[in-house]
């Protein structure tokens, strides 16, 4: 299980205009009474074109925690993330750091939550630096231009993610792993402490999967970020998450530490999969096996 030592991050971005990467050393210590959860979802119902996608989902993510949502195709994982990110109306169902989501203006929400979509659009001809600079949009006046602080923030993030050699490369020319780092950099440049990652590794080979997830985990611990992710690879998901939520047919079927969610019985029932679950050092390992 990954360490939760310094995981209690600041409840809100350290400053509106400042560094995109607050150091967790500056973050206030966890208060005894408990700060409000980074994400609180209560009885979330979403219907798309009349079909129920989510039917009463409850979810709570503590500041600094990494929660991964798993579930079979069509279970509603991406829809849940979209609702938390404010892309779907969910009146009354979602609070971010204690504030009802719909009470946040879009720009303010963008300073609190950053989303990395499953396969983000790569604009033709856009350089990495400009793409990451888009992350500063919530800080740039509507018809204005970026400030020196915004540029400094972008440089800081690029430097932190070892991307400064790529700054003037065209995004479209980078490899899958490099691109994923750039998508992450854009999200970090937003200065948000809550990261929503929709299938962050689905386009990557196994080595790059580990590299990206290690990076996310490191950033989370260093800067007190909260991570809510969806993932398909169950073993990998279990190794990085503090808690997992199994979503099936729009409902929470199970939630808890990976070893309680990744069980042969639950996976057989909800994925209709035949698997063996082996104990691993940092989380259960799920191995698909052919039915006898």
């Amino acid at each position, binding site marked *: 299980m990954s360490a939760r030592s310094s995981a209690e991050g600041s409840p809100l971005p350290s400053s509106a205009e400042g560094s995109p990467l607050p150091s967790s050393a500056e973050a206030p210590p966890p208060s005894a009474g408990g700060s409000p959860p980074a994400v609180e979802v209560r009885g979330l119902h979403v219907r798309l074109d009349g079909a129920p996608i989510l039917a009463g989902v409850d979810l709570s993510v503590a500041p600094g925690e990494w929660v991964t949502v798993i579930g079979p195709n069509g279970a509603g994982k991406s829809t849940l993330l*979209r609702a938390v*990110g*404010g*892309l779907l109306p969910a009146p009354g169902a979602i609070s971010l750091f204690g504030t009802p989501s719909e009470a946040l*203006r*879009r*720009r*303010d*929400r*963008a*300073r609190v*939550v*950053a*989303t990395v*979509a499953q396969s*983000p*659009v790569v*604009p*033709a*001809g*856009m*350089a990495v*630096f*400009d*793409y990451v*600079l*888009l*992350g500063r*949009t*919530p800080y*740039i006046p*509507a*018809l204005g*231009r*970026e400030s020196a602080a915004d*540029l400094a923030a*972008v*440089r800081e993030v*690029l*430097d932190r993610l*070892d991307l*400064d*050699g790529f*700054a*003037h490369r065209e995004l*479209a020319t980078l490899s899958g792993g490099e691109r994923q780092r750039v998508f992450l950099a854009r999200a970090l440049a*937003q200065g948000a402490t809550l990261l929503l990652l929709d299938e962050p590794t689905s386009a990557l080979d196994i080595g790059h999967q580990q590299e990206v997830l290690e990076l996310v985990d490191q950033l989370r611990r260093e800067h007190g970020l909260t991570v809510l992710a969806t993932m398909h690879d169950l073993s990998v998901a279990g190794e990085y998450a503090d808690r997992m939520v199994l979503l099936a047919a729009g409902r929470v079927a199970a939630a808890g530490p990976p070893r309680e969610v990744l069980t042969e019985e639950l996976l057989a029932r909800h994925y209709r999969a035949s698997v063996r679950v082996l104990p691993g050092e940092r989380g259960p390992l799920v191995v698909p096996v052919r039915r006898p």
Partner: protein
Amino acid sequence: MQKAITRGPSFAGRPAGLRPGWLAAGVLAVLVALVAGVSLGPVSLPPGSVAAELLNLLPGVRLDSGLTEREIAIVTELRLPRVVLGLLVGGLLALAGGCYQGVFRNPLADPYLLGVAAGAGLAVTAVMALGAGAGGALTGLPVTVPLAAFVGSLGAVAMTYVIGAAGGPGRSTAALILAGVAVSAFLSAGQTYLLQRNSDTIQQVYSWLLGRLATAGWHDVRMVLPYFLLTAVVVLAHRRELDVLSVGDDEATGLGLHPQRSRYLLIAAASLGTAAAVSASGLIGFVGIIVPHTVRLLAGASYRVILPLSLLFGGAFLALTDVVARTAAAPTEIPIGVVTALLGGPFFVLVLRNSRRTLT
């Protein structure tokens, strides 16, 4: 590895923006087009003298250009308004094209392919036909034609957008353009019908349709100028937002924007600009494709670069094309819309090939 070489504060990342060199090149292109446009014609005037005479128009400048009274009149009353109108119309069409390409995230978007110009054309034809019936009282008003064109262009772009979006949220490049083609055909048919029913106005409408700068006077410039300024200010003010929109609506929303709100505003502004251009000079196609794509290729893909440079180079392009239109087959003039279409057709094929490789 690279960190050791370029790290920390000395690392000089800078955003895509309009480089001063490109801005200077754009301004220079406009000045060259201005002098060339005024100098060349049935009576050729020395460019140096023309430049001096143009400078004389600035307050407080008094140079001896060596031109006769008659030549000065040719410069200031005949050729200058025509060239200035060409600059304004070309700038508007190129700016509108670049803006539509960003708003629709579609490299083939253009005032003509989206049916916007056809909508404006139908509306203007209707006003001319009805106006002739009403004894010219209607068309006599300076705002009637641009206003009708604006209503027509907005109606057309709305139709194209709705039809093109009917395929679902994953609106493809092709669907929107096909919708534009269908809308154009539909509106052109309406226009043909109107013309047939009002054959007395056919000559007037026909010469206007093919694109004309020939009869331009200062009153045309005065009519276009306010729309030009309004469109340019609104579109240029949103150039950074168009870059954000290029990552898609979801991500733009996640970054704190209201994509649909920006989109409607920008469509209205670009359509207003197109309508003003069409009502002054008829249908001049392909400027909105040729200019923004050339700028994108040479100066950079950011709308912060594309839009201001399209305004400048679009103006210069059309003013110079007009020189070709009136000198290539002298003493007769080729309609300028024919010249831009001859250039634009092959160019469009290039863009289509290129966009299939990179943008589907």
